[in-house]
């Protein structure tokens, strides 16, 4: 399962190669089984990249259709998992660019999943959200692949089909922006605590 981490493997059932081979031959029932098996993990990654449930659902739907359409071209069924992430990331790029609702200045916090990690303050999460939404989709994707799927840089490069230097560069800018977002949040507090 090249390019997919232990974490991703634990989160989802690995799609059987035989099922993939059947779907490659046009078996829609086999593909339906695949779609239900991979739906959650695709959606989860899409939501992390797009930070919007509606857009993530649209990207997931598009990715599943694209996976079906392109599946006969997949030479090695053993690489299905990594390949499906690549298709998903491309669907996220398309969503991010074509959907007017997606905007770097738009600020909508997800409220469907409770209060989140108690170790992260509301202020931290708000600043992370703001900082992340300012990033272009390519930088968002590398952050998600690194911090959510725990992929290494070579694995990210392989999955996205870009040189490792490009991954490194995107990651550098993305991390710098996220750090700036967090420190912008911290700055007023430090100023307020400074002795007069």
């Amino acid at each position: 399962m090249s390019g997919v981490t232990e974490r991703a493997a634990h989160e989802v059932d690995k799609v059987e190669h035989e099922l993939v081979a059947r779907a490659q031959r046009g078996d829609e029932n086999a593909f339906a089984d695949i779609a239900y098996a991979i739906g959650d993990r695709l959606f989860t990654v899409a939501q992390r990249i797009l930070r919007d449930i509606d857009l993530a659902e649209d990207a997931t739907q598009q990715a599943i259709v694209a996976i079906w359409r392109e599946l006969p071209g997949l030479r090695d069924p053993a690489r299905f998992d990594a390949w499906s992430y690549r298709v998903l990331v491309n669907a996220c790029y398309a969503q991010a660019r074509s959907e007017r609702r997606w905007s770097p200045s738009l600020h909508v916090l997800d409220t469907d999943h409770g209060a989140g990690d108690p170790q992260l303050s509301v202020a931290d999460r708000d600043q992370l959200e703001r900082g992340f939404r300012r990033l272009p989709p390519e930088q968002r994707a590398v952050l998600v692949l690194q911090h959510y799927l725990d992929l290494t840089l070579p694995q990210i490069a392989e999955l996205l089909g870009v040189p490792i230097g490009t991954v490194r560069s995107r990651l550098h800018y993305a991390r710098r922006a996220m750090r700036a977002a967090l420190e912008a949040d911290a700055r007023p507090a430090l100023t307020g605590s400074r002795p007069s």
Partner: protein
Amino acid sequence: MTTERDLDRTLDRWMDDGPSIVADRVIAAALTDVHTTRQRGARWAPLKELFMTMKPAATLVAIAAVAVLGIAAYRFILGGDIGMGGPPDRVLTAEDLPHIVLTAENAPGGLTVDGTDDGAPALVTPLHPVGPSFDMSAFVDALITNLNSAETGGYVSYAALFETSADAEGAYDFLVAEHTDAGWGMQRSSVDPELGDESATFTGAAYDIFERNEVHLWRVGNLVMAAVGVGDFDSDQVRSIAELMDDRAQ
């Protein structure tokens, strides 16, 4: 100051937050779309699987296959079933297709038919998935077979019938575009294969399966035909298939 480790930890925790279950309606909607979405190169996929498992066979068998093919062509010529070149003096019909395309009943020795399709699905099989639609108004019928050789790569025999020669000319031009820059982006050979009334040869990657393909595309009256080699094919075999089909259509 946020350290690198702090940032990593913060991002890890933040990424953990969020929904992790997709609504069933999303998958259901995708599968509805899937039902009406044609897979790229799907009809060629069985060839791929077959060719991946093929083992090299003896040269003797290859020579025998070519010899049988040659004899079959020679018999057609001597048998008076065909003319020699020039446009046909009759309009071909759907009943002619199984006698022109290489099928399980008439394929030369050494070639095994492992897939057959007809009608509109056969017509659109060689088309690139993105592009203008085929004008079906004058379409009559089509037949396509996938052929497997014990020695070399795979082959395809294809014929699409239209109401008139003029209709077939339009279809031929459309298929030429599908194989070149408007479609698969194959290279068109500068050498005319001199088949039928008009013909062209294309090489390169196509059909989303193999990097190496060779396509002879040509028209005889109201019939457009193609002989295709995919994967580890033998160019001479592709040419033999094309000539055999061409002879049968004349």
